[in-house]
């Protein structure tokens, strides 16, 4: 086993004092940035990048990578406690994490998030260790038609996210899609629905919307005393009480495994990434769960599924970065710049040219994941204390924190305005029972959906058959159709069965 030997050498690098320290700083920084509303790993990596100049490149990249997957862990904290997504990949964690916190099970939700993240991360690193160069080939199967099919598949999961009224759910999704068309058109370069504001040229950032729709809307709810008082666990916060119990695990483990594989593969695809992975993982979990009615009201597997997926995706994103030399996400794009800065050229040759770096980095991911899960489990009790804060202080401080996060994302006051506006809209939607999740999902997917559709048709010069003559695209589209049709048939059968009784 050549790989094992290389991995052991990698551990020799990763377990040096210097690397361990870098990893620790990285993951702690990652958790903080992940937990801050709105700010995601790409900001963190970019900010810390200059600090790593002139250091040993392996140490530096270990630290930067730590920020990346650390942020995936951290995002769950603010999602669960204050219903404010810490970063875009943590949006789905709000949906069930926060209701759990309202029921006094914040500890269990966070424990499950950490452990699911750990499992998702570690399994992915194992896959990565043994299969990275081979998997990189799979990334190349995806051209524009396949991306289009994948996005359709992602959108088809919306049918599982609608609340009481399917009409309202679909309308929410369509508004999300409409918002995704704002910005400069890829093909003509002309602004659409920008009203002359250059801030809108690059489109409406989805996290800016999610901060308002989830975060601020929930604060209004909280201030109005409508959301059921936030409360800490009734029982004493002992270490054991905090962890998810046996029943939770029984519900969660299949979803963690599915989330891991889904997350890893979607994370590998350039442009798709952790956010989309977490959405699809959540919707699949809801569909396959034995108790779908509990989703959105505090199902622990609704936390496990997206969290395992987003961590797996953050590892998956390293596949195209290292093995192909193309960045798969905003964060890996920053990492690519960093690698070049250190004169390490990622690409198929890096495994031969800089083995101590590649394997040191891989080994450090194992180490970092262990550090993260240990740190988070230790501090969950402290995080949960946040919920003891009197409501007026909590609302006031979280409100300004969300605004500061929204500003920092793009360094723009305009974005703060968007967040505030969607806060009000989100609250009204909540009162009218429009589900917010389809809106943000569509906003994430819409951009790629339209672009890949138009790219495919440019490639085929207007021939729609391009979507059905390519095998992978055909399979994905078939899965999407099945995802919509099968539950519909099942509902119909159930309905007619109950009628006949």
């Amino acid at each position, binding site marked *: 086993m050549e790989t094992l030997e290389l991995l052991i050498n990698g551990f020799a690098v990763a377990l040096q004092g210097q690397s361990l320290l870098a990893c620790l700083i990285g993951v702690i920084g990652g958790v903080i940035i992940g937990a801050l509303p709105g700010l995601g790993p790409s900001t963190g990596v970019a900010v810390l990048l200059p600090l790593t100049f002139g250091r040993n490149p392996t140490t530096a990249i270990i630290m930067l990578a730590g920020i990346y997957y650390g942020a995936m862990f951290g995002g769950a904290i603010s999602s669960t406690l204050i219903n404010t997504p810490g970063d875009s990949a943590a949006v789905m964690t709000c949906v069930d994490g926060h209701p759990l916190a309202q029921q006094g099970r914040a500890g269990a939700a966070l424990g499950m998030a950490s452990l699911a993240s750990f499992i998702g991360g570690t399994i992915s690193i194992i896959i990565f260790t043994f299969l990275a160069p081979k998997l990189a080939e799979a990334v190349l199967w995806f051209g524009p038609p396949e991306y289009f099919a994948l996005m359709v598949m992602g959108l088809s999961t919306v049918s599982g996210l609608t609340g009481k009224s399917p009409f309202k759910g679909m309308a929410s999704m369509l508004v999300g899609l409409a918002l995704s068309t704002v910005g400069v058109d890829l*093909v003509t370069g002309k602004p659409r629905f920008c009203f002359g504001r250059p*801030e809108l040229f690059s489109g409406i950032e989805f996290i800016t919307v999610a901060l308002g729709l989830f975060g601020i809307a929930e604060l209004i709810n909280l201030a109005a005393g409508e959301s059921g008082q936030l409360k800490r666990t009734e029982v004493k916060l002992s270490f054991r009480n905090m962890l998810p119990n046996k029943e939770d695990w029984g519900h969660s483990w299949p979803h963690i495994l599915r989330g891991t594989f889904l997350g890893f593969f979607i994370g590998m695809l350039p442009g798709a990434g952790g956010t989309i992975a977490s959405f699809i993982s959540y919707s699949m979990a809801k569909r396959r769960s034995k108790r779908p009615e509990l989703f959105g009201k505090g199902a622990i597997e609704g936390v496990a599924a997206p969290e395992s997926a987003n961590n797996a995706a953050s590892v998956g994103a390293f596949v195209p970065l290292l093995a192909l*030399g193309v960045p798969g996400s905003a964060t890996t794009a920053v990492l690519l710049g960093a690698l070049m*800065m250190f004169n390490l*050229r990622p690409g198929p040759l890096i495994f031969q040219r800089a083995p101590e770096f590649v394997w040191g980095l891989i080994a450090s991911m194992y180490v970092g994941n262990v550090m993260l899960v240990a740190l988070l489990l230790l501090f969950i009790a402290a995080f949960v204390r946040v919920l003891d804060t009197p409501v007026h202080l909590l609302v006031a401080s979280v409100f300004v924190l969300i605004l500061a996060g929204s500003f920092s994302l793009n360094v723009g006051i305009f974005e703060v305005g968007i967040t505030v506006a969607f806060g009000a809209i989100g609250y009204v939607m909540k009162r009218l029972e429009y589900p917010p999740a389809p809106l943000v999902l569509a906003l994430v997917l819409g951009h790629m959906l339209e672009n890949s559709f138009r790219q495919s048709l440019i490639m085929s010069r207007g021939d729609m058959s391009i979507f059905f003559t390519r095998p992978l695209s055909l399979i994905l589209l078939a899965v999407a159709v099945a995802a919509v049709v099968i539950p519909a048939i099942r509902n119909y059968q159930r309905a007619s069965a109950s009628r006949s009784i």
Partner: protein
Amino acid sequence: MRKSVTLLAVLGLVLGLCGSGPAWAAYPDKPITFVVPFSAGGGSDVMARAITKVFQDEKLLPQPLVVENRPGGSGAVGYAYVARRVGDPYIIATVSSSFWTTPLTAESPVNYEDFTPISGLGLDPFLLMVNPKSPYKTLEDVIKAAKEKPMGLTVGGTSLSDDRVCTGLLEKAAGIKFNYVPFEGGGEAMTALLGGHVDLCWANPGEALNQLEAGRAVALAVSVEERLAQLPDVPTFSEAGYPQVVHYQLRGIVAPKNVPEEAVKVLEAAFKKLHESQAWQKDYMERFMVTPRYYNAKDFANAIVERNNAYIAVYKEIGVLK
């Protein structure tokens, strides 16, 4: 009316006196904001941070440069932010293709006329790439195939950026028509090429080198007058008989309009020293495969106008501009 004109003149004089004169002997007496109109981690950001580091290490200015990212609108937001600070020498910005392309294609509020050129630092040429498994081994193969089948070959590139311009230049020079497929970024276009979803794509040497070395992509030609030192086997378009296909991304530094002459001189001198420094050439230029070329403020001003005309000409050709 006359009164207000006089008032303005006096005001201008007072401001001018405050601004110029002995006070400027000390320029810069506070840190200079270095605006990157893109997100942290992009090409311009990496360059800005590398510049900042060399400035600091080699003490090229008595005060530090502080990088500030102002992303949004393909540069429109950041450039508008800088342009608003008319006459302020404590703010400078990086220049890359979007400096020209965004004002031309989208409705950007400012364009190159709202800035004072400081220095040009280097240029990124473009390589025409194919997948090694493709039947096209040389530029001639490509052009022959394109002549046989107009719109038959797909070219991947970033939206309306330099990739589109290069495609347009080659189409015109060779009298052919490609099927241009726009992507969101260079990485996506390159992935599509590696996967065989498009026939050709354009890339900077820095982006392409990994793939070239690994044998996953082949460069057919380079869009500058002379072959690149690092890629001596890649012919230029003019060698292949298309001297019109010359295009590159110009990288440099600008300040807002009406910055005092003295400040421009100080900055210009500092960037000249940057260009001459070993660390800069080795740690940035070589690693990112940017072709070093220094322009002083005056030459850079001319180069900016020349680039702008070049973009306009191609955009008109391909119908983006009327």
